């Protein structure tokens, strides 16, 4: 017996009846864990909606699960943003311990927003040969989340784990376990997702939309010539964008077109999706990068309209690290075919900007969901030991986009669309119920099933312009106040006279001396007093239209976070009230004229509220023994199920009765 196994068995004996008396058993001659833990991570699954639908008898399998084990709201992170919340779960720590405070952080030298989850470094050594720049050392993409992931701890204890599409795990944490990166995985452009839309009628679409590019094309002799943009070609001195030319031949009579792309040709009918198509961007002789995308021929006549999804990293030949071990994604392709790799694949930007309509969006997202479920079943079919975590994004994405059609009071409510799509939020819960039914056959008496979400949901009816509020209240100074609503990224800010600024979706930073480049506030009493004053005034602020307080709770980060990275946190984290969220433009340093504005976008449900208002959900087929579990408790529970004592930095406690 290995020393580690001996220690595990000793620990199991010490912990008594809550722990399985034997961590490993032999099944069909193979050594396997006595307990298997299946965790389904359904992003944004709201406990109030689950409860309401269960009471109405519409979620029979959720109901069965709750009756057999338990169902509870699950305490979420502050703020309840997915990368933060899932990082709490991954590490068993709060943001002070894992260092992810928001989707976006800021560079205190430049006051610019940065990706919170990853950083990219280009090769440090290069050589220039004519127009080419040859790397002499490798570039690197770094995961910025700190702290050990629970599957790394499992690995140290010989417990196998498969972690599929875990958010906030790109590039995947180093491990020999099978892991596939989820939310945070970029497209081939290195962005959170940029679609391309080719049309003869570009005037109908806002040209400056987020998450997409609009290309004007011309139909000449029933032919369209276009170019699909790819990654920056760093092999070239002038660093142009790589691209692939393609041609579309339109049938002169029928609503059909043939697309020539690279060496491939395929036919699409009007309103037809192509499925995955591989596209190869040439960077230099002998060097190319491969991606996959989907084409949708929206209209042929009278106007040509072709949508091309974001180009995902090719899982068969990934240009960037998306999995561990490195051949895992290739193995999945060999079993299941090509699959999406970009985190959050549903194209919410295309729907928000009327490039895709509701039906087209649902078709696309359902395709991604079915692809995911096939992958889940594939993993379940060989799940014999340890832990299987599987993440589903559709629950989150559909609530973001269809909440407006559930409530006639929502500023983006549309009575006609509500008649057609008003049930889509409920439908995705019903779909998850069918999923529980579908996986039942894979569960045996050894399987502990945990269904969890990172946060709940609430309506996004009114947007709060934090930077405008700071400006109007004298905490933020502009060089040219008459240009208040012009420009972005604080380009009009008078930094030496500014005391505070907002970056990201919930973060407020003090312009602190010796931390920020042009800091104006002294650390110590001046800083402490300013933080308290701001927190108080933000919480007191009332929306004159509704009489409600947009900021339910202004958390002072030093009072709520623990661990070595607290100093990197925003100084104040805003917890919004029900119906409120940060506005669309404040996170990037804009100053719209009004402090509050109605949200008329299709993106209409959200989760930037105070953590107390929108907990996640926890269901399990074992009894819950803790009255108010939180995300970090689930992490501790997983380790406990295998007799592993959580490391001291983990904050949770076991919550399942496994006696």
């Amino acid at each position, binding site marked *: 017996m290995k020393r580690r196994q001996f220690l595990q068995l000793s620990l199991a004996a010490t912990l008594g009846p809550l722990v399985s008396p034997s961590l490993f058993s032999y099944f069909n001659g193979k050594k396997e864990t006595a307990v298997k833990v299946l965790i389904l991570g359904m992003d944004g699954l709201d406990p109030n909606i689950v409860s309401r639908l269960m009471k109405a008898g519409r979620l029979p399998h959720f109901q069965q699960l709750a009756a057999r084990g338990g169902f509870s709201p699950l305490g979420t992170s502050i703020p309840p943003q997915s990368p933060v919340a899932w990082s709490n779960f991954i590490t068993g720590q709060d943001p002070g311990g894992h260092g992810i405070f928001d989707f976006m952080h800021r560079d205190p030298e430049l006051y610019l927003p*940065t990706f919170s989850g990853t950083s990219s470094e280009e090769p440090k050594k290069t050589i220039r040969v004519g127009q080419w720049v040859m790397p002499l050392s490798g570039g690197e993409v770094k995961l910025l989340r700190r702290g050990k992931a629970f599957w790394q701890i499992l690995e140290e204890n010989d417990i196998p784990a498969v972690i599929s599409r875990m958010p906030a795990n790109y590039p995947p944490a180093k491990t020999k376990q099978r892991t596939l990166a989820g939310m945070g995985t970029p*497209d081939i452009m290195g962005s*959170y997702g940029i679609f391309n839309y080719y049309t003869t009628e570009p005037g109908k679409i806002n040209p400056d939309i987020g998450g997409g590019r609009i290309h004007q094309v011309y139909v000449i002799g029933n032919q369209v010539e276009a170019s699909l943009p790819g990654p920056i070609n760093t092999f070239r001195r002038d660093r142009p964008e790589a691209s692939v030319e393609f041609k579309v031949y339109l049938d002169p009579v029928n609503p059909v077109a043939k697309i020539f792309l690279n060496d491939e040709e395929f036919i699409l009918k009007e309103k037809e999706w192509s499925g995955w198509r591989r596209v190869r961007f040439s960077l230099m002789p002998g060097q190319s990068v491969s991606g996959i995308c989907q084409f949708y021929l929206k209209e042929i006549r009278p106007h040509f309209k072709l949508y091309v999804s974001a180009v995902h990293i090719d899982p068969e030949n990934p240009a960037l690290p998306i999995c561990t071990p490195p051949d895992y994604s290739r193995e999945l392709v060999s079993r299941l075919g090509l699959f999406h790799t970009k985190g959050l694949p549903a194209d919410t930007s295309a729907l928000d900007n009327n490039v895709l309509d509701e039906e087209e969006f649902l078709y696309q997202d359902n395709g991604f969901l079915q692809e995911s479920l096939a992958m889940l079943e594939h993993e379940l079919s060989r799940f014999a030991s340890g832990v299987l975590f599987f993440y589903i994004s559709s629950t989150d994405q559909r609530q973001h986009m269809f909440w407006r059609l559930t409530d006639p009071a929502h500023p983006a409510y549309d009575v006609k669309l509500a008649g057609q799509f008003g049930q889509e939020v409920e439908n995705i819960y019903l779909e998850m119920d069918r999923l529980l039914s579908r996986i039942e056959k894979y569960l045996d008496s050894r399987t502990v099933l945990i269904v969890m979400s990172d946060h709940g949901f609430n309506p996004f009816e009114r947007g709060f312009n934090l930077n405008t509020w700071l400006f109007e209240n004298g905490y933020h100074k502009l060089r040219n106040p008459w240009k208040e609503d012009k420009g972005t*990224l604080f380009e009009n800010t008078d930094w030496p006279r500014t005391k505070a600024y907002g970056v990201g*979706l919930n973060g407020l930073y003090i312009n602190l001396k010796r931390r920020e480049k042009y800091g104006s506030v002294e650390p110590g009493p001046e800083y402490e007093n300013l933080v308290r004053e701001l927190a108080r005034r933000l919480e007191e602020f009332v929306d004159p239209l509704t009489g409600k307080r947009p900021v339910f709770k202004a958390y002072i980060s030093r009072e709520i976070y623990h661990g070595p990275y607290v100093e990197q946190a925003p100084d104040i984290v805003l917890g919004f009230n029900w119906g409120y969220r940060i506005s669309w433009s404040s996170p990037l340093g804009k100053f719209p004229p009004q402090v509050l504005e109605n949200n008329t976008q299709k993106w209409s449900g959200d989760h930037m509220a105070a953590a107390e208002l929108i907990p996640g959900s926890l269901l399990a087929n074992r009894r819950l023994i803790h009255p108010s579990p939180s995300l970090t408790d689930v992490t501790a529970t997983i380790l406990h199920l295998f007799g592993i004592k959580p490391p001291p930095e983990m904050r949770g406690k076991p919550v399942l009765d496994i006696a």
Partner: protein
Amino acid sequence: MGQAKIKIDKNLFERLKKYASLAGYSSPEEFITHCLEKELAKLDEAESEEEIKKKLKGLGYIS
């Protein structure tokens, strides 16, 4: 490195000469070159800011 000439208003040039000398530049040309490089660096920076915005916007939470 090749050089090119540009025309500049005479009064402005007189002012440039004066401030170039006061600021310790060896010639008005050096002062002008420095000013132009500084402004161009800002524009280059603005382009990368634009890139940051585009990349973040794909997230869906901002516009």
